Every structure is written in structure tokens, then in C-alpha cells.
């Protein structure tokens, strides 16, 4: 395995008496795609939120690029280079495509010392990014509320491809996408990983996990039930890990 980018060490999260995560330990290497699998309520989304700064863990620690890391807000995680695409879309439907693409990191130029939005520069970047990904949106100036679910998800996916960072977390990114767009999305993930960016993808679809991931991590009832290289396992074995019928192949891969 390549040099670890993010190491999770016994990360736990309680909601009152309920233990959502009982202690999760695994690591993600640079340029590695890890598929995070597990049944509904296994704690996948909670884990992603902890890494992304949306939730604070109850205990445990994380190492990011070898240094102790805990994001107190999404802004901190972003600053550290962690991009997240959430399950429920994180778009502001009341503004246009360009504004959404650059949400929180608008290109500005100074006019009399005051930062002013550079709409033209931003529009050009978005146009280029969407064109290279093959996403067709009629006008970049239409408000997102007028776009289809697939177009919306495409904006989010293109956003992380464009801004990159060091680690990308994808929480069921293809839920609203068609067959062709999903294929393109998976290509995007490989392309991002080949630039040395670590990718964690949550999915329910076994086929997608096997198509894109280098390693498969299964979470069951708040603990890691399996951590295996893709080429050393099979969909059936993974399903057994998810449902808890066997613990075949359990334990860290490296």
C-alpha cells in the first residue's frame, strides 16, 4: 500500500447511549480509492461527517498526512484539503450554476481594495470544467432549481474534480445519475485518484464498488467488519461481511 494519507484510529461516536460508531480503524493511501460499504444505519455517513468536519467524534483520533487531525468545521476540513460530496445534495437552488460551483471560494478581483466577484472568470472555469466532463447544462446562468437531479449531481461531482484537494469523500454520489453519467462519474473518480488524491466512496451498489475501488472496507454495527483488497475478494464475500454471516477476510488488508 502507498503512503497513508488518512489514518483513523479507533474513532467512535455516541449519540447519548446509542453507539453509532464503536471504534473504527482503517487508513486511506494517496491515490487510493476505498469503497465504504455497509447496511443502512451501519454508520457510514456518520463516519464521513466526522472526517469532513460536520460532526465531532466522541473518542479516537485521526492522522492526516501523518499529523494529528480533527476538523471542527467543514471550513477547516476544506482548508486541509478534504472535499466532500454529500448524499443529500449540497446546492443552493436559489442561485445559478456558477455561484454553486464556486460556493465559498469565489474568484474575486479588488476594486478600490474591495473584493468584487469576477463573474466572467468564474463562468469560463465552470464552462471548461463541465465541458471536459461531458456534462451538458443549457445555461450556466440558470438557477439550479430549474435543473434536473442528474445535472445537479454533475455540478457537485465536477466541483470536486476541479478543486481536487488531497482527499475526496463521496457519500452515494450516483444516486440520481443515469447509466452513462454514472460510468462517467466512475471514470472521474479513477482520474482523480490517478492524480494522487485519496478517494472514499460510499455506495450501496456492489458493482460500482468493484468497478472503481482498490480496497473495500465494510462497516457493520459501528465497527470495521472487513478491510480487503478488491482483487482478493468477491461480491459474495463482501455481502457476507455486510450481513455478518461470516467474517471471512476480516482484518486490515495491509
Amino acid at each position, binding site marked *: 500500500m502507498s503512503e497513508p494519507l488518512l489514518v483513523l484510529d479507533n474513532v467512535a461516536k455516541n449519540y447519548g447511549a446509542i453507539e453509532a460508531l464503536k471504534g473504527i480503524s482503517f487508513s486511506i493511501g494517496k491515490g487510493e480509492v476505498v469503497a465504504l460499504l455497509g447496511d443502512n444505519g451501519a454508520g457510514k455517513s456518520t463516519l464521513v461527517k466526522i472526517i469532513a468536519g460536520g460532526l465531532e467524534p466522541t473518542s479516537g483520533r485521526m492522522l492526516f498526512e501523518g499529523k494529528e487531525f480533527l476538523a471542527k468545521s467543514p471550513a477547516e476540513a476544506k482548508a486541509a484539503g478534504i472535499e466532500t460530496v454529500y448524499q443529500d445534495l449540497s446546492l*443552493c437552488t*436559489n442561485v445559478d450554476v456558477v455561484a454553486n460551483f464556486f*460556493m465559498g471560494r469565489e474568484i474575486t478581483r479588488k476594486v478600490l481594495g474591495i473584493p468584487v466577484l469576477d463573474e466572467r472568470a468564474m463562468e469560463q472555469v465552470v464552462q471548461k470544467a463541465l465541458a471536459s466532463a461531458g456534462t451538458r447544462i443549457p445555461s450556466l446562468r440558470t438557477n439550479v432549481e430549474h435543473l434536473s437531479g442528474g445535472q445537479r449531481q454533475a455540478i457537485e461531482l465536477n466541483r470536486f474534480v476541479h478543486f481536487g484537494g488531497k482527499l475526496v469523500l463521496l457519500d452515494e454520489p450516483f444516486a440520481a445519475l443515469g447509466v452513462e453519467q454514472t460510468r462517467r462519474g466512475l471514470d472521474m473518480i479513477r482520474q482523480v485518484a490517478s492524480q494522487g488524491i485519496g478517494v472514499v466512496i460510499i455506495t450501496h451498489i456492489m458493482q460500482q464498488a468493484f468497478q472503481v475501488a482498490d480496497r473495500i472496507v465494510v462497516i457493520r454495527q459501528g465497527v470495521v467488519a472487513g478491510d480487503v483488497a478488491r482483487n482478493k475478494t468477491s461480491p459474495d464475500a463482501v455481502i457476507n461481511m455486510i450481513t455478518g454471516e461470516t467474517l471471512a477476510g476480516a482484518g486490515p488488508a495491509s
Partner: protein
Amino acid sequence: MNPRTRQTLEFILDNLVWFMLVFVLVVFSILIPNYFQLGIFANIIEASSVLGVMSIGLALVIIAGHMDLSVESVAALSAMAVGILFCSSGIGLGIQLQPQWLMVPVSLLIALAVGGLIGAFNGYLVVRVKMSAFIITLASYIWVRGLVLVISGGRSAQDLAPAIRWFGIQRLGGLPLTAWIAIACFVVFSLIMAKTPFGRHLVMIGGNETATFRAGIRVNRNLVIAFVLAGAIAGLAGWLLAIRTSGATANLGVGLLFNAFAAVVIGGVSLKGGVGTLPGVYAGVLLLSAINTAINLMGLPANFTQVIHGLLVLAAVLLDAFKQTIRQRLA
């Protein structure tokens, strides 16, 4: 539908309130004798300056998805603070500063500071204590007005220092400087909302607060700034009010809040947040003012104004819903 018609329709929808304003002005000019003269139009702008400034602050907070009911009381408190310090009769202390003009920035700063402080208080409670802005600012609406009564003892201050009053008397291009201040505020804040990251972030926060938080925008900081701005702008409105009435009374500006609300809603700002522009709000303010002037000219009892304003707000909300349906058809 071809793109050109669609674009035209969208343009009309986006600027509907301006078309309404022009329509109303034309109708009044035809139907009401003496309505069509520059003096009347100047009067419409002049009469709308206090309301206009106050509406800016209210609109900022509503666009960001929250609410500020305290603007009216905050304006009254700022006006009273300026009145007590710089008026020479009634409860006025008649403080004199040398040179005279120094009283202008000092009084203005006091008005802005009073408003800004109450805005900061509101914002802090909304953001940190996570209470509903509606309740917090309703409370502020009540206690701040109470504070005005307490510090004034229910009495009034008259005869504002001439150096300050100069802004209400001196005219430029037919309009008093106070009206120009209101116009300048609209220009400045319209630019901030449309052209700066801060304005863009407020609109997006109003649209989807979770998304902006996840995107790393400092939502809390932006919201507190919005509340402080709303308070400070209300303070400025109070300063203008003190100049306009050359002093302050304990019930100064009562009812302005509902007019500001009407202007904001008529101007196309959605109470759900995230939708609306400040030029639209200014058109809403001018529309209200144009109707008031018409009522005066027709010699109707002034009490009718309130009925008409109420109906206008209702019409504006209905219109907003209607606009939504058309937009959905367009998409």
C-alpha cells in the same frame, strides 16, 4: 417557447415591481390633477428616505433567511439618543461641539453604534443560542421601544442642532441631502449584495444554510454581520428621522415596521429567504410612497393609507405565488 420570449418574460418577472411603479405613476398622473409635476415626484422620493433606509436592513436579514422585527424600535432609540444629546429644548441636553460640523459625524456615529449594538445582540442570540430570529427580534422590538419610553420619560426633544438639521434643509437637484443619503445607501448595498462574496454568501445562506456551511462558508459570522448591519442601518434611519422631525418623540416612527415589511415584500423579497434584490425593495418603497402621495392629493382621509397598504401586501404575496407558478412553467 423560443429563448427570446422566455428571456423577455424572465426579465419582466424579475423587475415586475418597477413596471408596477411606472404603471401606478402613469395612472395617477392621468387620473389625479396636479400629480404630474416634478415637485410631486421629488416629494415621493423625499418622503420615502427613512422608510427606504430601514427597508434595506430588513431586506438583508430576510434575504439571509432570517427576520428582524426590531428595526423600527432601533430607529426610534437611535433618534431619541441623537435627540436627547443634540436638541436644545424639551428633554434635549443641547450639547454643543466646536466646530459645529463635528456634531454631524458624532451624532451619526452614535446612531449607528446604538443600532449596531442591538443588531449584534440579536445576531448573537440567533447564532449562538439558536433561538428563532422572529421571537428574539420581536422581544427586541418591544424592549427597545420600552427603553425609548424610559429614557425619554414619555416626553420629547425638540430643536435639533442646526448643523445636523442642515442635511434635511440643504437641497441638491431638488432633493434634500437626506434623500440622497437614502439613495446612496441603496446603491452601495445593492452593489454589496450583487457584486461581493459577502452578498453572494448571504443569498446562498438564505437558500440553503446547510449547503453553505458544508461548503466552508462561515455562516454564523455572516449572519451576525447581517444583523449588525440591519441594526446599524436602522440606526441611520433613526438619524434621518430625527433630522426630519428636528427632534424625537417617544412614539417616533410607530408603524414604520409594517411599511418596511410591505415595501420589502412588494419589492419581491421572499420571506422564505434567498430571493430578492435591493433595487426591487427601493421600487417597493417608492411605490408605497407614490400611493401615499396620491391619497393625500385626492384628499382622502389619511386613515385609508393603512387599509391600502394592507391590501398591497396581500397583493404582493399573491403576486409572488403567481410569479412562482409562471417560473415553473418557464423552466
